């Protein structure tokens, strides 16, 4: 069980960070970026 402890701690921290992000409405900024064509990504400038 001890060998899984770091991963369990990290997963817990990750879930906490995601929840904090959701509270701060960060998924909306991810969505806003992702639903528009990213000109830089596709090489248009």
């Amino acid at each position, binding site marked *: 069980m001890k060998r899984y402890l770091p991963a369990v701690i990290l997963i817990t921290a990750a879930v906490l960070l*995601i929840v904090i*992000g959701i509270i701060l409405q960060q998924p909306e900024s991810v969505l806003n970026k992702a639903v528009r064509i990213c000109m830089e990504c596709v090489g248009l400038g």
Partner: protein
Amino acid sequence: MDRKKTRFGIQAVALLIQNANFRGFLTGRIYEGASKSVCVPGLNCYSCPGAIGACPLGSLQSHLASMKFKFPYYIVGFLIFFGAVLGRAVCGFLCPFGFFQDLLYKIPFYKKNRFKIDKFLRYLKYAVLAVLVLLLPITCNLIPFFCKYVCPSGTIAGIWLAAADSNIRSVLGPLFSWKLILLLIFIVLGLIIRRPFCKYICPLGAIYGFFNKVSLYRMTVDRDKCVNCGACARACQMNVDPAKNPNSMECIRCGECIDACPHKALHMGFAAGSKKTAVVAEANENGDQKV
């Protein structure tokens, strides 16, 4: 079903799931649904017409490059989650661009995986992560440098969009030419070297590599069975020696070393190996030769 076929199947399904907006490939319009607020684990440009999720690297850079700096809790949370559960198994099983490179490497061509500057070039991806993904987007506002100047996944998305939309074709310029040349270089290198982009450039692989030693999905070596014959190291095309360092930052968990081991001493999975072998493997990773 053998390990190679299983992995190939998982890679194909992961590619299809992450790019399930099939109609977009025909219309040249990207998906605009709510699932795009969720980060996918691998390198899959959100401007790809098929993408139904958000690229974690693109989202991270876009967040860091925004006018008002706020720590990207949500995206970092996803990266830590995928890393802690799978480590670089994400690269080996779920990344669409990794799958693309695996397919390229299957094409019969001159192959060379081991050369002198390989170890030196491995450090390049950490520099790409630090400078292009983190430092420059924070300091030079509004520019996602890695996406703009390097990311080949975005170039593939651009090719699809340009093929389907004449308006996009009409505005292609020097940046697209640069990215196209870079993609062609990666394709040619991918015919010769196994996963050159993953080995030397990919910042996402660099991030997940940090988790390989602690992730739930891991490899263990049974020292009672291992005779140090070196078969696993010879089979590894990521140039790792699994017997010495089973959870190397470079290991993408393809499992080819496991198939190559004549003594079945290597194990991989969420509960890989017995408690004893796990302890032995961890002790070995810490530098002890024999326990």
